[in-house]
């Protein structure tokens, strides 16, 4: 009799404790689910708008969400999502997601092109694992702002480093590998994206 109790009690106790904490967590998860999703969406939308060179610094969270909802449309071609930004029915830019190899891990982000596909409107990096303080500085505006309004017409290599020697962007000093990786990703991705836009079914 005593032995039976020793098995029975721990099992019941464990089930009760587990049930209690699981319900607690399920409740909290339910309460915050919407907010977490909103935050995720906001982060993504901010990145898309930033790459389009829109003044996100002057916009509140609400404004970003409603701006994105009203003026940006999501489409996809060849399993790749892209975003069309239009103002009063006139297309102002296209944003494509990209992913490529960085120094330590992959770098992903957004590339924005103008409606004629002749100019790079901007670039933003959403995810990377570059060295903090060195390659990690690709997150800094000082670096990212250099990619604004770069012509991509009739060029094999869109991004060339060294503004002093005829390039269009300055690399991050001390982070040669990351800078090279970013250049290669962009130079590879832009022709691929241009090719996508010429495919049938690409929304004008």
């Amino acid at each position: 009799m005593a032995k039976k109790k020793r098995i029975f009690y721990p099992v019941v106790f464990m089930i009760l404790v587990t049930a209690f904490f699981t319900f607690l967590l399920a409740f909290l998860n339910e309460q915050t689910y919407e907010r977490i999703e909103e935050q995720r969406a906001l982060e993504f939308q901010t990145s898309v708008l930033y790459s389009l060179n829109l003044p996100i610094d002057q916009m509140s969270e609400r404004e970003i969400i409603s701006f994105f909802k009203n003026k940006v449309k999501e489409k996809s071609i060849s399993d790749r999502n892209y975003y069309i930004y239009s103002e009063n029915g006139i297309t102002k830019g296209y944003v494509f997601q990209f992913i490529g190899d960085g120094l330590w891990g992959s770098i992903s982000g957004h590339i924005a092109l103008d409606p004629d596909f002749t100019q790079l409107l901007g670039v933003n990096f959403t995810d990377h694992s570059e060295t903090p303080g060195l390659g990690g500085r690709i997150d800094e505006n000082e670096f990212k702002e250099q990619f604004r309004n770069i012509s991509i017409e009739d060029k094999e290599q869109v991004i060339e480093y060294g503004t002093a020697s005829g390039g269009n962007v300055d690399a991050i000093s001390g982070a040669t590998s990351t800078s090279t990786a970013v250049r290669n990703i962009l130079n590879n991705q832009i022709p691929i994206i241009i090719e996508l836009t010429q495919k049938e079914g690409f929304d004008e």
Partner: protein
Amino acid sequence: MNEIKKLFSLGVWKDNPVYRQILGICSALAVTNLLMNSLVMGIGLIFVTAFSSLTVSLLRKYTPKHIRMMVEVLIISTYVIIMDIFLKAYWPEMSDALGPYVGLIITNCIIMGRCEAYAQNNPPFLSFIDGATMGLGYTAVLLFIAFFRELLGFGSLFGIQVLGDGFMRWTLMVMPPGAFFMLGIVIWIARNVFPDQTEGGPVNG
């Protein structure tokens, strides 16, 4: 009151979890390249350790001894998930910055260690204080390490640039090896300040 004072001096100073008990090292190495990250990680750990100890202590008389570790892990993981959800919902930037380390608080031996060593045999309130002060000791060491790593590696403190533009960033400090050097130095100093009785005096050399 005396008991609280004693716990405080043990947790933060004499029996500090990081440099005396050598617990929680992985996260101490991982998040200390920025003061802000260390502070949030520390607060998280204080929260989780304090409430886990409290809960374990409340349940200690009803918990069968042979399944107590299962119960402890369950309780700890609950508080860690609460912390994770909270950061994701209200501070997504910090959640991104800390990455997987928030979830990994559950593997921090300090918490399990306190539940086992203290909360199992002591009343809830004292267990709560014990957990909080051990967390505080952990936070103090993290902040100490992060102070030097951020200052030397980025030239900033809490993200505010304090060393001029001419300062040459010492990148090694913000890379993982910098953490090993700093932690080693901290433990070395601590070993000299508080000689280990069981080894019969200070370790020289």
